[in-house]
């Protein structure tokens, strides 16, 4: 039978997964609000961020309590450090979703821009990375986490492609500059969300292996 501490550690992981589910939904809905010009969905995403923020505070509190009272070691210690870091990244992903939703609110009141396939691919990539990294967290799958790190290059390239497309478009369409800039900001938010997913992948590898691969992720 697991000790009360190990039960609490499982509960901590469940709390992180709950937060991850909310962050995933926020990113997914914010891009939906953007692509489908859905103002109500954008409002929902913005309103939902509070719950994500509260979960970060709760995870902080639980981690601090377990560190102070249980003095964990080895993998137990790494899991708590990993959950602390992951909660920070999830909170930021929530903020990126809010930012995208705010861009959607603006863009929905203006004429649509021409289709920009790079933008949808970027959203898909960021979401795929996020789903994969949460699966890696749950299954303690090192390879899956490493794959997420490698996918970050794709997200970066797609962001650059969106940027270049819109810059070229703006040169000839001065009235569309504001809409284009708003879209560039949204793309940047998706790219940042992909970065956060990469950070979480690094935390997952730290939890599993005890090695820190930050800043020199093997690609």
């Amino acid at each position, binding site marked *: 039978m697991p000790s009360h*501490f*190990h039960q609490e550690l499982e509960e901590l992981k469940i709390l992180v997964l709950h937060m991850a589910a909310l962050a995933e939904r926020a990113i997914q809905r914010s891009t939906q609000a953007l692509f489908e010009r859905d103002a109500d969905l954008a409002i929902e995403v913005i309103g939902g961020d509070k719950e994500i923020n509260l979960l970060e505070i709760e995870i902080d509190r639980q981690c601090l309590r377990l560190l102070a009272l249980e003095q964990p*070691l*080895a993998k*137990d210690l790494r899991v708590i450090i990993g959950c602390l870091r992951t909660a920070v990244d999830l909170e930021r992903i929530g903020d990126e979703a809010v930012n995208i939703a705010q861009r959607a609110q603006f863009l929905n009141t203006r004429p649509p821009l021409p289709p920009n396939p790079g933008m949808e691919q970027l959203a898909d990539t960021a979401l795929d990375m996020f789903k994969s990294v949460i699966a890696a967290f749950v299954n303690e799958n090192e390879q899956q986490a490493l794959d997420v790190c490698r996918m970050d290059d794709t997200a970066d390239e797609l962001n650059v492609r969106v940027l270049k497309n819109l810059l070229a478009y703006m040169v000839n369409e001065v009235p569309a500059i504001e809409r284009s800039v708003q879209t560039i900001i949204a793309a940047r938010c998706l790219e940042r969300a992909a970065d956060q997913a990469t950070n979480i992948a690094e935390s997952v590898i730290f939890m599993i292996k005890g090695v820190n691969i930050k800043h020199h992720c093997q690609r």
Partner: protein
Amino acid sequence: MNKTVKMSARHLNFFYGNFHALLDISLDFFQNQVTALIGPSGCGKSTFLRCLNRMNDLIPISRVDGQILLDEQNIYDSRVDVVTLRRRVGMVFQKPNPFPKSIFENVAYGLRVNGVKDKNFIAERVEKSLRQAALWDEVKDRIYQSALGLSGGQQQRLCIARALAVEPEMVLMDEPASALDPIATQKIEELIHQLKKNYTIAIVTHNMQQAARVSDYTAFFYMGKLIEVDVTETLFTRPKHRQTEDYITGRFG
């Protein structure tokens, strides 16, 4: 980091009668470093510690195979004088065990046993040892009073001072703080940090946080075997062996 090996166990086996208590232990103790020995009760860590200054010789049915080298000399060599060995490798036990004598005489005891007669020398060494054991300021005004009047934590530091008075090269500590309250424990741990500047220390402890706090290296024993030894930070954050991981995270059994 100083990497000179002060003491080294080489393929050490130890038997209580037919019971094979230690199985092929090879372990280095680095000079001016603290090495913690951890493991569940009965794993052999205290038996191993007692091999390091031949305290197990006192058990008639015991038998030792292999070598323990102190500065490259095998302490189980027949030419080794055990009294001299125990002066070089001092020991502090779990329960403070002061003699029913004055504080001064407790610390002077080892010197007198070794034939030192010079009163000034003895007085100087007693003061120096009590200072090293962080006890001098608390007892300097009652040094000729009975040691039995000291608190448990003070008695343990007195025993450390007694061990230091003969200027050993290595100090073995068998759960030196397990009978003490948290404040006395903290003092002993702080003392260990200070002592390693001058001594090589091996400490057996059941308290993993204590091992983590005081030691440079940690060795994990299980069922008479040395499972893993590593830099303390590494052993407690990313142990290599499953048994170590299970033990230090409390998933044993």
